[in-house]
Each structure stands twice: as structure tokens, then as C-alpha cells.
């Protein structure tokens, strides 16, 4: 039985539809991340699961029970908000007590749960403080503690790291991962940050314009994107996209002439227009005499430490290559590059869908 099930779920505001009939299954204990650019409907979807937005159409179930008409308080969920939503007039302890109050537990149990959460999250020293006296990272932990003490069936996270600075974000991200491993509770997590999604998720749901574009493990969405949107949204820097044409077993574009990778052989009709997708790491310096080497002019180099990014021009296409920093070329140099055929993606330029399967 799935922990959360969405069947053709639609959200409309007046006549404007913002979520267009999505289907999704979140399994018991799974960490599922809704990923997409702002305005893609991911937060709206999360808020429908929480019960903060009505479901306009379709069916939403939690633990096998239809909850479309169930009030948030009766759904057995707990939520961590983007701005943490800590009650500023209550201490850390009171914040957690307030979340427990509707459960009607006895005082000893309330105290036990608060102590347990405080122990796990390292909040012991902070219980008497007000939110205003806490740092951003501490507030974040209190928000998680407040969700934890309720021992919900499902944790909902709404961009919980977006208000933290970069260093803290990495640290709290790790803590969230550890917490999930420890508690094993189902998590539905919204973010626009693909690094968070890749590192935390068992399953990533990539959304755009109120549609689900792809559901899969981080490896699947990275290595086998369903379409050009997923391919370019996941991974940084973005995948290079080059319009090309299939002519006699070759992929041809301005300044480019590659053999069709073996897995596509026989799948491409002659004269088919395609878009070649290749990640910057798929472009490497060519060994002398390598087949299908492409000559490119380096416009900018960006030194990252171990690697360097090259902004290069091939014909009239601007591409990015990520190569070892040692011995990198200088701007203005001409370099010879090869496309790793095992990581070449081909897409249909009309539909954007992958041609890989």
C-alpha cells in the first residue's frame, strides 16, 4: 500500500488550472522529492497533500484513505515550512508542545517525545529560547523537531533549506538525510535545487508547468532523461543541446559530423532531424588521430579547481566542456574534442522526447 497516492489530481484557481491531472505514488518509507522551476506546481501539489489547498479534481489518498475532504489536522501529516513558521511568541519547547496538544497525550509522554526530538536534533540547550534568539540553522532544526514529535505518517518539507546560506545548507541537508535514515518515515520534499534532490531523494519527480515530466531515481533522471526539459534541468552546468540531422549513419550539424552511436543504429530514419544532447563532461580533449574529433575555439575558461569549464564555439554553436584543469587551453586557442558516444542523448526536436528508447 502506498503512503501517498495522487490520481489525476487537478488544481484550479478560478478558471486557471495550475496542476493538470497528475498521477503519483509515494511508497511507504520513501524519500520523494518534487523538483522543478518556480511556478511548476510543486508547492501547490505539496499543499494539496497537506490539506492547505483544496483538490479541484481527482483523488488524493494517504495510507489508502481518500483524504480530499479531510481537514489538515486529521491527515496524519507534519510539515516543515519554507520560513519555518515557528510561533514567535512561544519558546522552542512550547512550539513542540503546541504541535502535540491536539494529540491529547499525557504530560510524561509529551516530555519524553520533546526530549527525544531535542536529543536527536541537538536542541537540548535551546528548549527555553524564543525563535528570535535562534540562528537560521537552529530554527530549521526546531521546525523539524516540531514536525518530528508528532510521529506523523508523512513528513512534508516545503523548500526547507532555501533560507540558509550555502555552507549551512549542505550541513542541514546531510542532517535531513540522516534523520530520514533513522526514522524511516515517508517524506515528500519540495525544492527547486537539483543538488538537494539528487543527494536526498530515493525518487525524484520532475515537474514543469503543472505536469510531471519524469519520475525516477536520481540516477535515472540524470542518465536517462525522458525529454529535453529534464535533460537540461538536471545537471550543472546544463546539458549542451545541438540541433542536427541524420544523414547516412552520421549526425551532421554546422561544424560537426559524428557517427551515430551504436545503440541508435537502425532506429533513426534517414533525414530525421534530431537534437544532440551531451553533458559538459561528455566532451573531452581528443587523443591525436581520434575518430570524429571536433575542432572548437575556446572563448572563456573558468577554473574550478580540479576541473575547468571551457566555453567553446563549434560552428555557430556555443557549448560548454568540463575537462581536467591541468594543461587547460587558453582563450582563443583551438582545441580538438571528442563526443563520448556512450553518453550522447538524442531528442525529437518537435516533441522534445528522447529517442533513446
Amino acid at each position, binding site marked *: 500500500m502506498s503512503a501517498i497516492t495522487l490520481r489525476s489530481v487537478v488544481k484550479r484557481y478560478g478558471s486557471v488550472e495550475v496542476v493538470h491531472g497528475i498521477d503519483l505514488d509515494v511508497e511507504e518509507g520513501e524519500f520523494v522529492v518534487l523538483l522543478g522551476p518556480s511556478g511548476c506546481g510543486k508547492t501547490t501539489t505539496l499543499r494539496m497533500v497537506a490539506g492547505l489547498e483544496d483538490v479541484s479534481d481527482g483523488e488524493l489518498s494517504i495510507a489508502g484513505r481518500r483524504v480530499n475532504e479531510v481537514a*489538515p489536522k*486529521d491527515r496524519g501529516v507534519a510539515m516543515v515550512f519554507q520560513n519555518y513558521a515557528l510561533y514567535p511568541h512561544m519558546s522552542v519547547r512550547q512550539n513542540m508542545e503546541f504541535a502535540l*496538544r*491536539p494529540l491529547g497525550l499525557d504530560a510524561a509522554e509529551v516530555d519524553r517525545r520533546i526530549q527525544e526530538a531535542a536529543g536527536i536534533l541537538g536542541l537540548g540547550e535551546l528548549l527555553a529560547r524564543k525563535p528570535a534568539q535562534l540562528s537560521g540553522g537552529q530554527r530549521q532544526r526546531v521546525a523539524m523537531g*516540531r514536525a518530528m514529535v508528532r510521529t506523523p505518517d508523512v513528513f*512534508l518539507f516545503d523548500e526547507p533549506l532555501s533560507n540558509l546560506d550555502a555552507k549551512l545548507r549542505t550541513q542541514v541537508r546531510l542532517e535531513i538525510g540522516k534523520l530520514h535514515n533513522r526514522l524511516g518515515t515517508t517524506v515528500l520534499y519540495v525544492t527547486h535545487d537539483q543538488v538537494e534532490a539528487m543527494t536526498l531523494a530515493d525518487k525524484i519527480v520532475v515537474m514543469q508547468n503543472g505536469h510531471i515530466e519524469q519520475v525516477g531515481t536520481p540516477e535515472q533522471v540524470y542518465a536517462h532523461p525522458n525529454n529535453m526539459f529534464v535533460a537540461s534541468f538536471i545537471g550543472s552546468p546544463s546539458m549542451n543541446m545541438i540541433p542536427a540531422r541524420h544523414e547516412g549513419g552520421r549526425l551532421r550539424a554546422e561544424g560537426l559530423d559524428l557517427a551515430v552511436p551504436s545503440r541508435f543504429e537502425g532506429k533513426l530514419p534517414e533525414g530525421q532531424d534530431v537534437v544532440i544532447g551531451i553533458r559538459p563532461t561528455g566532451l573531452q580533449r581528443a587523443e591525436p588521430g581520434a575518430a570524429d574529433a571536433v575542432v572548437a575555439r575556446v572563448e572563456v575558461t573558468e577554473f574550478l579547481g580540479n576541473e575547468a569549464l571551457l566555453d567553446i564555439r563549434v560552428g555557430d554553436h556555443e557549448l560548454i566542456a568540463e575537462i581536467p584543469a591541468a594543461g587547460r587551453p587558453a582563450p582563443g586557442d583551438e582545441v580538438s574534442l571528442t563526443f563520448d558516444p556512450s553518453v550522447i542523448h538524442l531528442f525529437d526536436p518537435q516533441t522534445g522526447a528522447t529517442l533513446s528508447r
Partner: protein
Amino acid sequence: MNKPSMQQAILVYALLGIALIVFLTPIYLIASSSVKPSPIMFQRPPAMLFEPTFEHYRDLFTMRPFGKFIMNSLMVALGSTAFSVFFGSIAAYAISRIKHKRMNDIAFWILSMRMFPPIAVVVPYYIIFKTAGLLDTPLALIIVYSTANIPLTVWLMKGFFDEVPRALEEAAAVDGHGLISIFWRVTLPLAAPGLAVSAVFCFIFSWNEFLFALMLTGSEAQTATVAVMSFWSSDAVQWGRIMAGSFVILIPGVVFVLTCQRWLVRGLTMGSVK
């Protein structure tokens, strides 16, 4: 804005000094005349140093039941404040939270209720209360003052409720709290300064009011403002007593200004300037 130069600073202080003299002299006059013995009240040049006397205050409370009028004022002001803050704040919560295009119209309608000139409704009130047998009772004034105080509270509290983040209420809703519990334990405590400001404004408006009190009360429910005016109509003007009564009446307002002037702007402009 840059820091003013020496000459500019002197000019600023000089002009402000004049302004302070102009704006504070009448208040000083009330205070000093209330303790000035009658024979030297109008002495020229004005007596600056004199033995203060409390005879006017003594007369105020012994020759007239001024204590009773003060109690009437207090009762009316507190009654109207409690009534207005209760109904006004729950209405403000609804207006702040319900997103509907008609809400603005309702809010403006409520606000406009405060702006109508009281004289326009004093006649109907007089007749209605006369018919209902409520003339010369504190209840009549509590009702009338609330018509001005509820709109004020609605507008002030709407501003304060708007500033309470929706996410806090949503968090409480997900945590299993119902509407009443959320309002009572999350929203209202966070809007508490608004409650205090609204209450103080309602109190001072009611305390200071004169026109309705004059029209709708007689000897029983008379308030302090009407009573102090009545010292005027007797044969000889009792300036000492008038000033003593005036001083008592202006205390709440002055205390309010001195303690919480930062809320004044919001209250007096109905939230249109923050």
C-alpha cells in the same frame, strides 16, 4: 539625509523652541491655573511663582459629584472599549483572511461608518433612546461610541492581522489545531500590540467625547466632559474648577502620547500611514 551644520542646527532648535512654546503653553496654563488661587488667577503680569492650592480640586469633588461623573466616563469608556475590541477584532480577522473581491467593499463600508458626522445621527439616536427608555444611561453612550470604535478597531486590527504570516496558521492547522484554537493561541497573541492600541484609542475617544454625552445624558449618566462644561454656565465662571476638571480629563490622553507615540500615527490615520 545628511547631518545638519552648526548654523542649521541652531535654526532648527530655535524654530522648534518657538513651536514647543506655542503648542505647550495652553497645556501649561491648564495645569498651573488648576492650582492657582482664585484671587491671582488673572493677575498681570501672570503670577509665575505662587503657593499652589488644591482648593479647586477639593471643590470639584465636594461641591459637585465630579467623582460620579468620572466614574460614568470610566464606565462608558471601558464598556465601549470592551464591546468594540471584541466585535471589531473578530470582524477584522475575517476581513484580513477571507480573500474575496467584495471584502474590500465591506471594509470600506465599515470605515465610512466612522467618518460620518455624529451630528447627522444624533437626532435619530435621541428619538430611539427616548423611545427605548435609554436616555441618560451609560448603555446609550456605550452603544453610540461603539459605532465609531468598532470601525476603528476593524481597521487597526486588520493591519495587524495582515502582518501575522499565513504560514503560522497553516503550521498550526497541519499540527491538528482547529479554527478557534488557531485564532486564540496563534493569531491573537501575535496581534496583541494591535489589541492594546485599539483598546487605548477606543478608550480615549470615548473618554474625550462631548457631543453625544451632552445630548443623550442628563444628571445621572453625565460624563466628565459635560460636567466640566457645566461649571461655565453658572453665574460666575469657575475658572479654577474648570481647569482642575480639564486637567483630570486630559491625563489619559497625555499619558498615552508620552508612552506609546509610535502607535499614534497608525491609529489616527486608520492605518493609512504606518
